[in-house]
């Protein structure tokens, strides 16, 4: 029972990070290979605060988010200002992720590569669940507001968006900070769930997992990535496969999705009862060209 409990808590924590990343990658259309770094920043900031300074848990989480957001400004300011091409930006995030890990391994307050043991266990399943629901709800509101719509416009056609008076830099920056803060929150929850963190936990493997979940779930959906990350974590646990086989599967999933269904499991739809019943009824309107968001 404890085991299932644990898997569910991890799923909830990763949902927080994945949904945040879906705003950046799915809705704004920028590809990141370094979002694990924001989880690392959130994890270390909040853990150091609760461990060394006895700051209350929720406040520490909040400060971890703020720290991740601030660092994302440092990454985003030069790169997004320069309107880098998608792949250039991706390589920049990859470098950023590595740089953050190297720094964490060499700081004294993080105790370097050995890691930080003895962090208090604050993240219980109900806590993780509440945060996951909260973040999904906030993200849904975000996407259904002018901020989210502008992000989608930028993803769909950045030139047309600019000609429609949308400031590309501001929109992309906001999405980056939002996703970074969600990552920071997930990191903080993660640290206080495992009670031990180490820089090596936040490598590009974790970034890959998050990005794969967003791509597989659907770039333009919130529930799709939620579903995908839950499957990504639960299926290997059920099958009890070695960690490396998971990565083999992530790689294969990315390729297969891109080759056969680039819009992901959910495409641009959200998982809802209405949507499910529509699938079964084979609504005629879909044949006429599909409904927009």
């Amino acid at each position, binding site marked *: 029972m404890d085991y299932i409990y644990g898997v569910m808590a991890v799923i909830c924590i990763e949902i927080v990070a994945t949904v945040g990343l879906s705003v950046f990658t799915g809705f704004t259309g920028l590809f990141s290979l370094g979002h694990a770094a924001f989880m690392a920043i959130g994890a270390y900031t909040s853990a150091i605060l609760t461990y060394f300074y006895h700051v209350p848990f929720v406040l520490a989480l909040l400060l971890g988010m703020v720290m991740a957001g601030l660092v994302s400004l440092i990454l985003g300011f030069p790169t997004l200002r320069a309107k880098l091409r998608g792949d250039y930006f991706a390589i920049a995030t990859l470098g950023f992720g590595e740089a953050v890990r190297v720094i964490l391994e060499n700081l004294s307050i993080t105790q370097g590569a050995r890691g930080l043991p003895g962090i208090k266990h604050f993240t219980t399943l109900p806590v993780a669940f509440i945060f996951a629901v909260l973040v999904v709800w*906030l993200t849904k*509101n*975000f996407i*259904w*507001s*002018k*901020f989210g*719509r*502008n992000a*989608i*416009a930028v993803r*769909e*056609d950045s*030139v*047309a*968006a*600019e*000609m*429609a*008076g*949308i*400031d590309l830099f501001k929109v992309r920056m*906001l999405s980056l900070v939002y996703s970074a803060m969600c990552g920071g929150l997930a990191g903080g929850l993660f640290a206080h769930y495992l009670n031990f963190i180490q820089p090596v936990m936040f490598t590009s493997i974790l970034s890959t997992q998050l990005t794969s979940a967003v791509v597989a779930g659907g770039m*333009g959906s919130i529930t799709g990535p939620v579903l995908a990350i839950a499957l990504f974590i639960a299926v290997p646990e059920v099958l009890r496969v070695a960690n490396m086989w998971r990565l083999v599967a992530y790689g294969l999933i990315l390729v297969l999705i891109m080759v056969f269904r680039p819009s992901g499991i959910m495409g*641009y739809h959200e998982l809802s009862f209405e949507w499910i019943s529509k699938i079964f009824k084979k609504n005629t309107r879909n044949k*006429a*060209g*599909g*409904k*927009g*968001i």
Partner: protein
Amino acid sequence: MPLLELKNVTKTFGGIVAVKDVSYYIKQDEIIGLIGPNGAGKTTIFNLITGVYKATEGNITFQDRDITDANPVSIVKNGIARTFQNIRLFNKLSVIENIRTVLYREADYNLGNALIRSSKVTRIEKKLYDKSLEYLEVVGLIDYINNRADSLPYGLQRKLEIARALALDPKLLLLDEPAAGMNPDECIDLVELIMKIKRTYNLTIMLIEHHMDVVMELCPRIVVINFGQVLMEGSKLDVQNDPRVLRAYLGEEYANA
């Protein structure tokens, strides 16, 4: 006093001259045509006016303000909107969201409101939804509001682009080949639409078009571009009767024949 004026505008791309020493103007309430063979540099001129490209030399003034080096967003805010030769819509958004996205510049709720979806947000969203409907009504897309933009037939996509440009509340509207790919009936329909929006929204319009009947119907004054330069500028009668224009379009042997 011209609304928009180009003075000796030149644009080069790595040594290749795309637009050379172009000067012309458009007055308030005018509708002018920009014609010329493919690759003459007409769309490049639109891109220079809207700030997509920066002019290598010369300057562009709009309402007495120098906008040569202004960025696209501020040019839009100043009151210039455009459509694109190869339609650029927000494809995965619905027809109405394409318009509402543009109207969001009027939405004065902040991020906090948006995140908790306060009543202020729902109220403003509703208001902008209704306002979007008005624009869709004007261009005749009211029956398609929930369709995804990329599911519309070609002609309707062009109309949606025009509606989106209108929603920016421009003073000057740049239309880049609005009749491309349309049959004669659709062209007549389009001419009526352009006349209607010009009246309704008090617009000044600059139009790139290859359908000569559309240009002749709409534009009393025409600027002819050839090889990146202004070949001639004058009334539609002047242009129709000028041998240079015929030569530019049809080549040397036809004009001499």
